[in-house]
C-alpha cells in the first residue's frame, strides 16, 4: 500500500543548530504513528515540516505521493498542544468559525458528539477545563473530516481520568480508519494508541517499528525489582543492573536462574516484583538517562 504521508531526508537548519538531520518516515493510511523523543530531539520541527507549517532546509514531504500544495490543508487536521482561541467565542462558535475555512466539513452537531462537547456548546471557550479544551481543539482538527490528523501532545497536563477519556476518543477516530500522527511524552500513551512509533534524538530517528517489535529487539527478558535495602549488587553480578533511589532492577532473560542465584546469596525476596520492559525503559535505554540541557 502506498504511504499516505512520507518524509524524505528532511533537514532543518537554523543559524546555530541543525534541528532535524536527515529524517525519513513513511506513514501508511489508517495507521496511528507515534513520534517520540526527549525535549529538543527535533520531533516538533519534524512534525511542523510534515504539517506544512515550516519549510525544510533540505528534503521533501509527500502527501499521497505528491509534494504538499495549497490543497493539503483542506485534507488534514491539526491539534496543537497549546493554543488559544478568539476571546468570548463559545464552543459552538469556535467550531463554526473553523468550519467556515474548509470546503468540506462535518455537521457541527456530529463533531460535538464525537468529541463529547454537547454539554458546554454555549460556554465561553476560555472557561473550559483542561480536558474540555483539549476535546474542543480535537473537534477543531476534525471539523473538516480529515483523512490525516496530527495530534501534538494532546494529553499533556490532563488528569488520568481526562487522559483515559481522550484515549477513548482517539481510539474511536482510529476506528474510522483515519491516519494519525501523534507526538507525545507519555510512553504509556504511545503504547496504548500507536501502531508504529519512531524515537528521535538529536535530530535523527534512532529507532522505528511497532512498540512490541522494538521492545523485543532491545529487551530480551524481564526486569526483577527488589527493594534497595534488600540487595546491594556486587561488582561481579552477572546480570545488568539499574539502581534507583528505592529499588534495584535486574534485567534477566532467565528468571529461574536469577532467582536461584539471589537465593544462594541469601538475598531476601520480600518485595520482589517482576516487570516487563516498557516503552519508558526503551526510551531511556535509547536516549540515555542524563538530564539534557
Amino acid at each position: 500500500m502506498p504511504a499516505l504521508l512520507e518524509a524524505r531526508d528532511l533537514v532543518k537548519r537554523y543559524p546555530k543548530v541543525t534541528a532535524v538531520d536527515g529524517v525519513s518516515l513513511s506513514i501508511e493510511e489508517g495507521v496511528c504513528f507515534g513520534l517520540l523523543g526527549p525535549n529538543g530531539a527535533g520531533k516538533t520541527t519534524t512534525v511542523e515540516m510534515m504539517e506544512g507549517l515550516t519549510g525544510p532546509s533540505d528534503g521533501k514531504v509527500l502527501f499521497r505521493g505528491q509534494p504538499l500544495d495549497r490543497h493539503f490543508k483542506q485534507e488534514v487536521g491539526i491539534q496543537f498542544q497549546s493554543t488559544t482561541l478568539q476571546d468570548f467565542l463559545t464552543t459552538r462558535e469556535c467550531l463554526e468559525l473553523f468550519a467556515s475555512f474548509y470546503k468540506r466539513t462535518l455537521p457541527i452537531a456530529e463533531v460535538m458528539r464525537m468529541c463529547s462537547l454537547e454539554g458546554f456548546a454555549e460556554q465561553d471557550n476560555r472557561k473550559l477545563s483542561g480536558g474540555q479544551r483539549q476535546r474542543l481543539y480535537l473537534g477543531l482538527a476534525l471539523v473538516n473530516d480529515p483523512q490525516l490528523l496530527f495530534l501534538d501532545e494532546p494529553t499533556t497536563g490532563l488528569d488520568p481520568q481526562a487522559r483515559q477519556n481522550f484515549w477513548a476518543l482517539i481510539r474511536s477516530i482510529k476506528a474510522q480508519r483515519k491516519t494519525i500522527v501523534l507526538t507525545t511524552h507519555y510512553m504509556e500513551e504511545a503504547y496504548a494508541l500507536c501502531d508504529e512509533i519512531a524515537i528521535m534524538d538529536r535530530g535523527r530517528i534512532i529507532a522505528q517499528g511497532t512498540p512490541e517489535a522494538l521492545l523485543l529487539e532491545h529487551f530480551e527478558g524481564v526486569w526483577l525489582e527488589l527493594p534497595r535495602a534488600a540487595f546491594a549488587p556486587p561488582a561481579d553480578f552477572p546480570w545488568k543492573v539499574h539502581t534507583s533511589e528505592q529499588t534495584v532492577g535486574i534485567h534477566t532473560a532467565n528468571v529461574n536462574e536469577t532467582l536461584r542465584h539471589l537465593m544462594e546469596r541469601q538475598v531476601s525476596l520480600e518485595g520482589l516484583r517482576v516487570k516487563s520492559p516498557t516503552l519508558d525503559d526503551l526510551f531511556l535505554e535509547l536516549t540515555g538517562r542524563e538530564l539534557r540541557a
Partner: protein
Amino acid sequence: MRAFYALFVARNKEFLRDRGTLAWNFLFPFVAVAAIAVVFSGNGRPLYKVGVIGLDALRGPPAAAASAPALPAQTAAAAASLGAVAPSAPAVPPGPSASASADGSAPLPIPPTAGATDPAERSRDAMRAFLQTRYVQWVAVDDVGAAQDRVRHHAYDLLLDARDPPRYWVNPSNPKGYVLERVLWGGGASGSIPRDLLEGREIRYIDWLLPGVLAMNMMFSCLWGVGYVIVRYRKGLILRRLKASPIMAVQFICAQIASRLVLVMFVTAVLFFGLDLMLHFYRAGSLLDLFIVFAVGGICLIAMGICMAARTSNQELAGGLLNLATWPMMFLSGIWFTLEGSDPWLIQLSRFLPLTHLIDAARKIMVDGATLAGVLPEIGWMAAMTAVFLAVGALLFRWE
C-alpha cells in the same frame, strides 16, 4: 468569502462582548471633551488670536512692511465676496465709538495719532504698537481667504494686513474682536486703517475640537483594536492555529480591517449624534462627505495598526510601538490646538501623520463647509499612506 465573513463576525462578537473595552470606546470621548473643557479654560494660554499678513515685515524695521508682496488678486475678490467694506471706509475716521462697534454694522475708524506723516506708515506704526500687546497669539498668515474664514468663525479675533494699503478685518459678533479693536485704536494710529467686516456664526472651541476628538478616538480604536489584537493573537498562538487552516493571510487581514472599520464607524456615529444632542455643535458641510472622510481615515489608521503589528509577538514592544505612533499624533495632528505659528519643521512633520489629514478634512467639512472636492488633497494623503502601510504590513506580516 465564507471564511472572510466568519472571521469578520467572530471579531465583531469579540469586540461587542468585551464590555469593558466597549464601554471605554464610548466613554473616552465624553471624558476627553469634559477634561478639555476644564484643562483649557485655565490661565496661561493667550486670550486672543490675531492673524497678521506680513507679520515678519511688521516686526522688522519701519517701511519694510510696505515692500511686502502685494495682495494676491484672489484676496480682493474674496474680500468683495465677503461683503468687505474697505473701499468705502472713511479716510479720516470720527474716532472710536462703542456704540458703532456694538452693532458692528458700520465701518469703525482708527483715530488719528501723531508720528509719521505717511498715513499708511502711521497705520503700520499703530500695528507695531499693537504687536506689543500681551496675551495675544500672533499668527503669520499666507492664505488670506482661509484667514478670513477664521475671522468669520471667531478662530481669529482679528486679521491685520500690514501691506499697502494697511487694513484689518473683524467680526462684529466677536466680543474678543471688539476688545482687540479698542486696543488697536489705543496703539495711537495717526492715520486710518481701513476696517472690513466679516459676518459669520461663532465657531466655539468645542465645535472646532469635536472633529479632533472623534478622530482621536478613532485613532486609538484602530491602532490598539487592530495592532494590539493581532499581537495578542500571535502571542496566544491563535495566528498559528489559523495558519494551520486553509485561511490566507489576506483574508484574515481584510476581515480585521472590515470588522474594525464597521465597529469604529458605528461608535463614531453614535458619538457624533450623541455629542450633537448634548452640545448642538456647528456643522457646515455634508454628513455624507464627513462619513466618507472618516471611513478613509479609519482605513488608513487600521492599515497603520496592521503595519505596526506585522511581526512582533511581544505585547510590551507592540505597546511601545503603538504609543510611539499615537503620542506624536495626539500633539502634532491638531486635535487640541492648531500648529499655526509653530516651527515649520513641526508643521512638515505633522503632514506625515494620517491623523493630521483626517482632522484637517473633517474640520474643513464641519467648520468651513467644504465639499469632498475641497478635501481631496487630504483624502489623497490618507489613501497614499494606506497603500504604504498595507504594502509594508503585507511584506513584514508573519503568522508566528
